Structures are given as C-alpha cells and as structure tokens.
C-alpha cells in the first residue's frame, strides 16, 4: 500500500514539473521515487497484508510483479529523458502519465476484489490512451491513440459485463467469495457466461488472437518509447492480473476452459509469428512478435498449476528486458536512418559494435536461444505445461518458436554480414551504456535463472 501511495504522489508531483518550472528535477525525482517504491515493496516482502477492507492484498506475487513493472517504467522514463527534444512541451506530463500507469499496474496485480481489478485496468489504460497520442500533430500517433482508445473501451465493456454476470451468479465481487460460491454451486450458466466475457475482455487487453487486430496499428503509430512501454509494462501487468484472477477465482474448475485458452494460445503463437515474417518495418514486426509472446504467456495461464506464477514472472522479466532494448535500438535506427526496415540495420556491427551486440542479445532472447533469459522463460512455461499433459500446445509453441527465429535474425544478420556507407549512428549519451547493461542482465539470467524463477 505504501508502494501505491508513493507512486501516486510521485505522479502528482511529476505532473506539476512542467507548469511549476522544475522540469529538470522530474527525471531524477521519478527515478529516485521508483527506486524508493521498489524498496518499500521489498520491505513489505512476506508480510502478506490486506488493505481497504480486503480489496487488495500485497502478497509476494503482487510485490514481485509491481517491482517488474516499476523497473520497466524506470527504464522507459530514463530512455524517454535521453531521447526527448528540448521543444517537447508535455515532457513532465508524459512522465507523470507513465507513473500513473504503473500505479494502475500495482493495483491490477494486487487485487482481491473485482472492483480493484477494474480500477487498475482503467488507470493503466487511460494513461496509455493519452500517451499513445503524445505527438499531437502527428497523424499516425493520433490514429494510434484513437484506435487504442476505442478498442480499449470496447474491451472494458466486455470485462464489466462479465463481472456483472459473475456478481449475479455468486453475489460478491470478492475473489474469495466468488471461489467459495462457485465451489458450492458449481459453474452455472450465468457464471460460465460471465467467465467467458471476462476472458474476452482480458484477451483483448493482452492482445491474443482473435482480439489482436488493433495491436500492430497501435504499436506502430504510437511514439516508439510509448510502444516500448505499452508492450512491456502494460502487457506484463495485464498478464499478471489475468493469471491472478484465474488463480484466485477459477482454479478449481479449470478443466472447463483449459481447452479454450490452449486453443487461443496456439492460434496466437502461430498467427503472431507467421504475420511477423511479412513485415518490412521492424517496429511493426516487434508488434507482431509481442502478440506471439502473449501466446506463450497464455500457456502459463492455461496450465494454472503451482509453478505458473514463477514461470510467468520469469518470462515477464526476460521479455521486458529484451523488448525494451529492441524497441530502443529500433528508435536509434529510426532517428539515424529515417526508417526501420532490416536493410537499415546494415553494417551496424561495423559502425556501432555495442549496439549490434545489444541487438543480437535481445533478438536471441526473444527467439529463445539458450544462454539467454528468453530460453529459460520458455523452458519454464513449456515444461510445466508438459507435466500437466498439454503436449500438443507445447508442440505448436516449439514449432512457432522455430518460425520466429527467421524474422528475429533478419536485422541481426543485416547488422553483421552486410556492408553500409552510412556514417556511425549517433545517440544520446548513456543510451549505449544502458543497452549494454540490459544485454548483460539478459545473459546473466540465461546462465543463472534460479535467481528469479523460484522467488514466488
């Protein structure tokens, strides 16, 4: 709870940075504040306290995912600071919106009442709608913002109708009560309908097929730094909430819907990876790749056993590290060569060896090659699915991982084996160091995975 209060206060303070003329303080303040909030989270580890009449509980699951989201936000804010131009009018407001969004994430991952789930999702989403439209004069950004808003609000409708039906069937919004009532009465028609609608709403939010159609457009149109934020922090929080909801409410009746989620996961992985092959823009390719990763993470939601929490946490960390750095490299390439096709990565290994190294590591991690964090992310998720007997889903997942290698390696191959006459790429100071740090973390987690996997 202290974590949440400090995040909100931090957001309010950052909001005033622009108009009260302490703009230069915003970045250091938010970085320190986020680190402080994470320390508060660490301090509350193992306390398992409930707040607000048992509407939210800061258990280890909630704290771990809050910290992952805050770390993602910290990186995004740093990179946003590096790359913002001096005439960026809404700099302080953008940082404040990111902080509000992460406060929403903290609510989402710690709910024990459906009201809190709804509020958390909305706090996150409303911030993201505005962030996507950060470039007010840029039509692509406008369009991305409107599409995201309409689709997000549409999915909220489904989510709410599901919650209402579930309330009708069980008489409560508290997860413990819902689980208890469903345990006695079993899944009646109304509860099943509610579960289905709730699932549709959440699948929209995590961008799983067949509700993924907004993702590529939104991710491509939004400013790249915002895309990185949406694709990592937003997605991780949505998955954490998804898994938490199912663990708390619907775990006993999982046989009834496992097949549905498994099928959705299989189609999502295949469709995301196959569509990604045909994209020329690397940013759009990464958008499809994020759809495919939603598919892999859905496997953990489907399995829903004791190891799901740990495996999805590890996957989130690996995915966040690799995604943020790959989006960042795309941004650097866009700024220097005005485009982001695979050809624009030509010769990167010669001109900017460290950036090429970071690119290679993040792409290897996203495709799940051993000795990177991505490998163990997939390994944990797949092995727990296999132990529960879902061999067919894992088979699809492995096949689609092989497909993904093809498009993930395209920019890497271009960077190392092709020549260019373009000059060395320039980027703000500190970018390169942070990218190298992210790559080293990815490799470290690929060698010593036990570090995070067993934590919750």
């Amino acid at each position, binding site marked *: 709870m202290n974590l949440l209060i400090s995040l909100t206060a931090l957001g309010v303070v950052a909001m005033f940075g622009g108009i009260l003329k302490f703009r230069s303080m915003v970045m250091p303040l938010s970085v320190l504040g986020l680190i402080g909030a994470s320390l508060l989270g660490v301090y509350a580890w193992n306390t398992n306290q409930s707040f607000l009449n048992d509407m939210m509980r800061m258990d280890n699951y909630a704290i771990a995912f809050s910290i992952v989201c805050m770390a993602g936000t910290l990186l995004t804010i740093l990179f946003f600071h590096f790359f913002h131009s001096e005439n960026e009018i809404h700099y302080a407001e953008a940082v404040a919106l990111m902080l509000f969004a992460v406060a929403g994430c903290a609510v989402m991952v710690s709910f024990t009442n459906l*009201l809190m789930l709804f509020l958390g999702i909305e706090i996150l989403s409303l911030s993201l709608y505005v962030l996507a439209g950060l470039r007010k004069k840029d039509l692509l950004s406008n369009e991305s913002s409107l599409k995201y808003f309409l689709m997000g*609000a549409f999915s909220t*409708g489904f989510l709410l*109708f599901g*919650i209402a039906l579930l*309330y009708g069937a069980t*008489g409560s919004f508290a997860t413990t009560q819902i689980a208890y009532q469903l345990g006695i009465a079993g899944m009646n028609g109304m509860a099943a309908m509610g579960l289905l609608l709730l699932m549709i709403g959440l699948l929209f939010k995590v961008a799983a097929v067949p509700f993924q159609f907004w993702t590529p457009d939104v991710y*491509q*149109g939004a400013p790249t730094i915002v895309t990185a934020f949406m694709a990592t922090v937003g997605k991780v929080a949505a998955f954490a909430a998804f898994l938490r909801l199912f663990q708390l409410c619907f775990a006993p009746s999982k046989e009834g819907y496992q097949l549905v989620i498994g099928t959705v996961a299989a189609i999502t992985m295949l469709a995301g990876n196959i569509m990604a092959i045909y994209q020329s823009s690397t940013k759009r390719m990464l958008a499809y790749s994020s759809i495919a990763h939603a598919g892999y993470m859905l496997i953990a939601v489907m399995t829903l056993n004791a190891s799901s929490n740990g495996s999805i946490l590890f996957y989130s960390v690996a995915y966040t590290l690799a995604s943020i750095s790959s989006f960042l490299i795309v941004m650097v390439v866009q700024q220097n060569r005005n485009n982001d096709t695979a050809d624009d990565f030509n010769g990167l290994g010669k001109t900017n060896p460290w950036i090429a190294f970071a690119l290679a590591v993040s792409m290897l991690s996203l495709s799940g090659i051993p000795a990177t964090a991505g490998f163990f992310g997939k390994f944990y998720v797949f092995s727990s699915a296999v132990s529960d007997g879902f061999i067919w889903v894992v088979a699809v997942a492995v096949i689609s991982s092989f497909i993904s290698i093809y498009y993930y390696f395209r920019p890497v191959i271009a960077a190392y084996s092709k020549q260019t006459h373009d000059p060395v790429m320039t980027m703000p100071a500190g970018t390169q160091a942070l990218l190298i740090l992210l790559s080293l973390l990815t490799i470290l987690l690929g060698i010593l995975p036990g570090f995070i996997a067993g934590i919750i």
Partner: protein
Amino acid sequence: MPNIFQTVPLIHFVYLSALLFCIGVVGVLIRRNAIIIFMSIELMLNSVNLLLVAFSAYRQDPPGQIFVFFIMAVAAAEVAVGLAIIIMIYRNIRTVDINELSRLKG
C-alpha cells in the same frame, strides 16, 4: 419492506441489459463515426450498470451499487479522454470518420 424491483422477474433485467449490450456491440462494429462508436461504448457500459443495479437490488447487497458509482466515474474519465482524442484528430483532419484514418497498414 417489499422490494419494488422484485415485482419484475430478475431474468427480464438480464435480458434487457443483454439486449442493450448487444446493441452497443453492434453499434461499435458497424458505425464509422467516431462519436457514434463512442456513444455505443457508453451504451455498453450503461447496460452493465443496469444489470449491476438489478442484481444489487435483488440481493439487497449494496456493493453492486457502489460498483456502479465507480463505473460511472471511470466512464466520465473515459469520456474526457476520448473526446479530447477525437478533438485532437478533428483539429488535424477536420473529420471524425474513422475510414479517413487508415494510414497504418502493414
């Protein structure tokens, strides 16, 4: 105290709000004017409010109505953000037809 809501069978409320919800969904899917899509979404949210209030009155259980308050507050925030986005677009392209917005294609 007799509950006035209970003179109408609950299932009628469920049907009514499901119908309103479906009208909203169809509106979102077939209309091309951003404002009308937006109104359809509001209709979806309000059908949920109706359903929650009906359940709440039936069970004599206040949390349902409190949830409605929160939905209304969040819907107002959504209206603010949504209208702001639509105005921003209108300033740039002078229309709110979403077919005009198709620059983002693969």
